[in-house]
């Protein structure tokens, strides 16, 4: 059992506020990912939870108990660092058993727990090696093993995969998800990589400059981003943003006029938006289709063929850059002029302030 509650959590370095009041509830056995651009305060927030940074303001509760002033070793957490932070002069076995040794756990029990963790992580052949004799992926697993051995209530990960190559990263993502299922523990995971967030999280917390932008399930964030920042941050390739104005605001949706004059009906509530108000129309790259009869025209500047998929980079009228994701079999070539149709269900509208206007219906997978 481990739940975490963050109440208006704040952190300042001198006069410089890094974490600006975060409220968050993390349920038992949840896999929560903090995601955000570099420097937004993800690591600081994680380290505050870990107890490695003092909390300037607000309250942190673990299982309902206030732990603001409890030391890092006594919060029942284990952390996996970005640089792994293995002890270089200890063997893998000693690394993994260090916490138990400090806690004066008898050697036999210590060895049993280390062996068990080594089995889960397939580290058995390397137990007597030093960290320097391991590959990056193996070191990563030792760092995770060191956390597992302590049987913590909550696992904390700070960008644990960022030092691995792309193939290994993909493999470790799967392994971490499997581990989460097997260990049945609460996990908090920090990353700047939205793909890691999308693939592993039960719940994503999008952070920007020390504030929470949105909290939700991956598909929640993907299909119903709360604002321009989240819409642009989640999803790869990025969502296309087109300037537009509200043409008609009806109860069955909104009609917007694009810069080029074309009008588009989208199933989104206009709320307080009045005809003539400037808005931003957001369209995911897979919400656009090559269609000679479509309402939009654009010039293809670059074609990226990934095999199964093809990405078209376009220049729309008004010098507007756009990206479209289409089937790999599509023959469109660079410098073609193409027509585009829009899937109205895949569009988003953002007010001038950046806030999203609500869709008329929820996406079926976004609970």
């Amino acid at each position, binding site marked *: 059992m481990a739940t975490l509650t963050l109440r208006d959590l704040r952190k300042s370095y001198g006069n410089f506020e890094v974490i600006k009041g975060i409220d968050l509830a993390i349920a038992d056995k949840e896999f929560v990912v903090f995601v955000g651009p570099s420097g937004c305060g993800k690591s600081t927030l994680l380290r505050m939870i870990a*107890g490695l940074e003092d909390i300037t303001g607000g309250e942190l509760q673990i299982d309902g108990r206030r732990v603001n002033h409890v030391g890092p*070793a006594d919060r029942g957490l284990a952390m996996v*660092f970005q640089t792994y932070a293995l002890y270089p002069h200890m063997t893998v076995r000693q690394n993994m058993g260090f916490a138990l040794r400090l806690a004066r756990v008898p050697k036999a029990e210590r060895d049993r727990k280390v062996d068990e963790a080594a089995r889960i992580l397939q580290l058995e052949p390397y137990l007597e090696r030093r960290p320097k004799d391991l590959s990056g992926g193996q070191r990563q697993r030792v760092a995770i093993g060191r956390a597992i051995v302590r049987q913590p209530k909550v696992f904390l990960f700070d960008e644990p995969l960022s030092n691995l190559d792309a193939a290994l990263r993909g493999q470790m993502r799967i392994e971490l998800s499997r581990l989460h299922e097997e260990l049945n523990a609460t996990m908090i995971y920090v990353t700047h990589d939205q793909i890691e967030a999308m693939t592993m999280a039960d719940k994503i917390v999008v952070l920007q400059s020390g504030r929470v932008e949105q909290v939700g399930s991956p598909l929640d964030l993907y299909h119903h981003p709360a604002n321009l920042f989240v819409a642009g941050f989640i999803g790869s390739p990025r969502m296309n943003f087109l300037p537009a104005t509200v043409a008609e605001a009806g109860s069955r949706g909104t009609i917007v006029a694009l810069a080029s004059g074309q009008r588009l009906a989208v199933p989104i509530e206009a709320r307080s938006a009045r005809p003539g108000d400037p808005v931003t129309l957001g369209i995911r790259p897979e919400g656009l289709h090559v269609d000679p009869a479509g309402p939009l025209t654009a010039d293809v500047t670059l074609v990226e063929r990934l095999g199964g998929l093809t990405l078209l980079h376009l220049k729309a009228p008004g010098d507007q850059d756009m990206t479209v994701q289409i089937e790999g079999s599509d023959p469109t070539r660079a410098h073609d002029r193409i027509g585009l149709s829009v899937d109205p269900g895949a569009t988003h509208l953002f007010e001038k302030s950046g806030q999203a206007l609500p869709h008329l219906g929820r996406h079926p997978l976004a609970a």
Partner: protein
Amino acid sequence: MDASVTEAPPVETVATAMPRSVGRLLLLPSVVVLLAWMIVPLVMTLWFSFQYYNLINPETAGFAGLDNYRYLVTDPDFWVSLENTLILVGSVLVVTVVFGTLLAVLFNQPFPGRNIARVLAISPFFVMPTVSALIWKNLLMHPIYGVFGAVARSFGRQPVDWFADYPLASIIAIVSWEWLPFALLILLTAVQSLDHEQREAARMDGAGVIAQFVFITLPHLSRAISVVVMIETIFLLTVFAEIFVTTSGGPGNATTNLAFLIYARALLQYDIGGASAGGIVAIVLANIVAFFLVRSIARRLEV
């Protein structure tokens, strides 16, 4: 495209085109200078150590066989000086490594005025040995004019005459004071290079301040400590100026180390042959120490 790759001549052929002997020839000047610099004095010392050669007694000259060595090993001063040398080296090593490590850890913590404190702690290293020994002798340890004496009197105690009562300990204090900054400097850079995430990981693992020091910091410092020990040993075997300007090896032979003994033989007793024999013993001793040190440290540096 392939052609351009094969066209470029392998770099090696340029180097091997010239005969090896030319390379050797070009090395010759440096080798000759080095030989003259090192081998000639060594051979001359060796030669003198087998000669009767006394500057105030030119009558007795000629081949002495092992006589100089026999005099040396039967001279109680020699064994005392050997013992003093080892005590001096060992004590200074212990003091500088222990305090150097503690100070390095301390100076790695943020505190107000840290940079000034660091400079102050390191500055003794820039004072030449004769000067620092004189400062200690006349300004600090002198029973009448010295600071220590004044402090003792202000507590109503009798001042200690350091060089008379604790001569070797006094020398050890002076030399340690000179070498502590060196140890501190090396160890401080080593402490600073410790990955702070490692210490944080240890904190998460439940290590307190002492456990962090024992299990994380000390192992991390072991290399730097080896380097300090090796370099200091080489210099401490030849400590001379501090003894010369403070105790002149006395009282009696209480502070005579091997270097001072050789000096006394050669320039106080004018016995060049005996001094040379002492010098050869010193060389052998230094090499034995160096051999063991380099071997044990080379093994540690591999890690």
